[in-house]
């Protein structure tokens, strides 16, 4: 049993006392009415996705453009962390290359969008096609890395994917006429559709796009995790030999996990390019990959809710530290030094402390709280 992922209820020691055997009368008890979509995993997940989308839809009307921008960034990160937490938490493959995979998606979207504009091709279908291309390219890159990764374990895989993360600036410099080296590319993004009215803020429109992408990503990952494949992922992580003995193709399972999580990373990268309307290699460096790792560890490895917590913190923490340091009267030089680095130092420290003290992350802490409350409830 792994300690990085104690976040699954099945593995928890049963703290609830054993229930008495069913009474003979129980057969006459009318079964509970079905909860929405119960019985079909897909329907249940679709229901929750629809609820979440509706909530966010109304929230996006109530907040100002900057908050909408932040919301969109959280959603873009959520695309990536959902896939990564599946890969690392459930399949046991640690990837430091997801920043690079995001770059694949982002650069593809940038090139596709600008190509469409150059050829005067306009229409509402442009962005979905660009994003789909981004996902495709990232998935192809993921398949390539995944095939190699399936033969590597633990620190070896981490080292190779670390080298992948360092390759991004090399590519953008080598093929400078395509990727424009360190300056990067600006991304042509359509204004919101005319049907939404002339004064519709573009940030809200981008937030909707990002939320939509995050919901697609979550839906795919959640369904996969609850399927036969998800169980294979966990089996391969926990014991490869045993998994092989029950007929699971280990390498194929690992490649599948890598490809799906790479596709999610590509989608997240593409959305990030749309939101920030620019791509440059410095955004997708090793630090981004480390931040993504922090996000999934902090949220709770292997948990999709944890992925959401992590994505939220990736956006909130730098924002909060900037707000706090602005409160102090710092010299511009010192403020400049603190600007990007203070959140990273806090991230690093948090990652270490969480790993040492609470390897289950935020989601596990909530679950423990829930268990305690339920136990008290039963006792009274």
């Amino acid at each position, binding site marked *: 049993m792994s300690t990085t992922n104690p976040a699954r209820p099945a593995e928890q020691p049963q703290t609830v006392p054993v229930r008495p055997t069913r009474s003979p009368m129980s057969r006459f008890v009318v079964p509970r009415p079905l909860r929405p979509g119960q019985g079909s995993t897909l329907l249940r997940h679709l229901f929750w996705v629809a609820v979440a989308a509706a909530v966010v839809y109304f929230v996006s009307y109530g907040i100002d453009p900057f908050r909408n921008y932040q919301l969109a960034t959280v959603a873009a990160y959520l695309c990536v962390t959902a896939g990564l937490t599946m890969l690392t938490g459930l399949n046991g493959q640690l990837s430091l290359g997801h920043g690079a995979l995001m770059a694949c998606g982002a650069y593809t979207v940038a090139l596709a969008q600008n190509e469409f504009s150059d050829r005067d091709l306009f229409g509402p279908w442009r962005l979905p096609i660009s994003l789909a291309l981004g996902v495709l390219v990232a998935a192809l890159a993921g398949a390539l890395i995944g095939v190699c990764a399936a033969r590597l374990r633990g620190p070896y895989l981490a080292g190779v994917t670390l080298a992948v993360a360092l390759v991004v600036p*090399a590519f953008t410099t080598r093929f400078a006429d395509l990727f424009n080296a360190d300056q990067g590319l600006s991304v042509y993004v359509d204004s919101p559709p005319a049907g939404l009215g002339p004064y519709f803020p573009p940030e809200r429109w981008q937030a909707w796009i990002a939320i939509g992408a995050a919901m697609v990503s979550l839906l795919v990952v959640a369904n996969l995790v609850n399927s036969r494949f998800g169980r294979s992922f966990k089996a391969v992580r926990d014991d490869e030999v045993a998994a092989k003995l029950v007929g699971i193709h280990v390498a194929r399972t690992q490649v599948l996990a890598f490809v799906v999580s790479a596709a999610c990373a590509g989608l997240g990268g593409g959305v990030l390019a749309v939101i920030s309307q620019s791509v440059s290699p410095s955004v997708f460096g090793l630090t981004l990959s480390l931040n993504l790792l922090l996000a999934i560890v902090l949220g709770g490895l292997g948990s999709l809710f944890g992925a959401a917590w992590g994505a939220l913190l990736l956006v909130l923490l730098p924002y909060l530290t900037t707000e706090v340091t602005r409160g102090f009267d710092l010299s511009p030089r010192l403020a400049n030094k603190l600007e990007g680095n203070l959140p990273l130092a806090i991230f690093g420290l948090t990652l*270490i402390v969480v790993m040492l003290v609470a390897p289950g992350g935020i989601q596990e802490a909530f679950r423990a709280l829930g268990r305690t409350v339920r136990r008290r409830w039963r006792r009274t």
Partner: protein
Amino acid sequence: MDRFIFLTFDGLSRGAVYAAFALALVLIWRAARVVNFAQGAMAVVTAYAAYTISDAVGSYLVGFLVALVSGLALGALVERGLMRFVGHANPLNDVIVALGLVLFLTAVVGMIFGGEYRAANQPFDTSAIEVGGIPLMSRYDLFIWGTVAAIVVLLALLFTRTAVGLRMRAAAFAPEVSRLLGVNVGRMLTLGWALAAVVGAVAGVLILPTELGLHPHAMDIVFASAFAAAIVGGLDSPVGAVVGGIIVGLILSYVSGYLGAALTPVAVLVVLLAVLLLRPGGIFSSVRARTV
């Protein structure tokens, strides 16, 4: 041809530094079965300390000694204060904690010194020594070779000729038995980390003047290259680390000389993948790697 010879010598001195850095990784791997992903960040910290002191005092030697001492202290601190408490149930735990340390250390260095490149001055004349009209190497390259050779010889003597070295090997090889025989295994582990950090610190100080200079992320690519070197050598053998370092140094020198310096990271990735997929145990492995 001149260019080839020049690149070969350049590759040899790069390779010497990678060899030292890879040796640091191998030392920790042998002692604790951990790949220290924070090695690069730790070397950045010690290099900043060394060059700051050396600029203030005006003596390269003092800076070099500062690198040694701060490396020793940092390595012991990281082991005693951090790595000792990491659960070993999952092999990823060590890696994740080390990566957290990378984020923390580079950010702290960035907060103190800022994110711009700082020049790291060389202690010696940089002009090349010419032999028969062909520029071969600078005095600094000679200094690099001498230092790395001294490190290798000292480590070899330590592990094969002294009681402490024997205890360290025993503690790594069979911790329980060594503990029964009176070896303080925990202290040996700390010593291993401290030694590795010293070697890493020296490598960092040596390579900085030949690269772009001091920067919080200056060691990222050096770490990846040294990791590749250690993998080429098999991660478990000090001799392999030295040979691997030289090989990787030569490959990177040729790639950056003939194809462009920007492609160095790609070359590192290709070398890593080639070795791990074709000979997972390193080029010296005789036993077949375990396949599952």
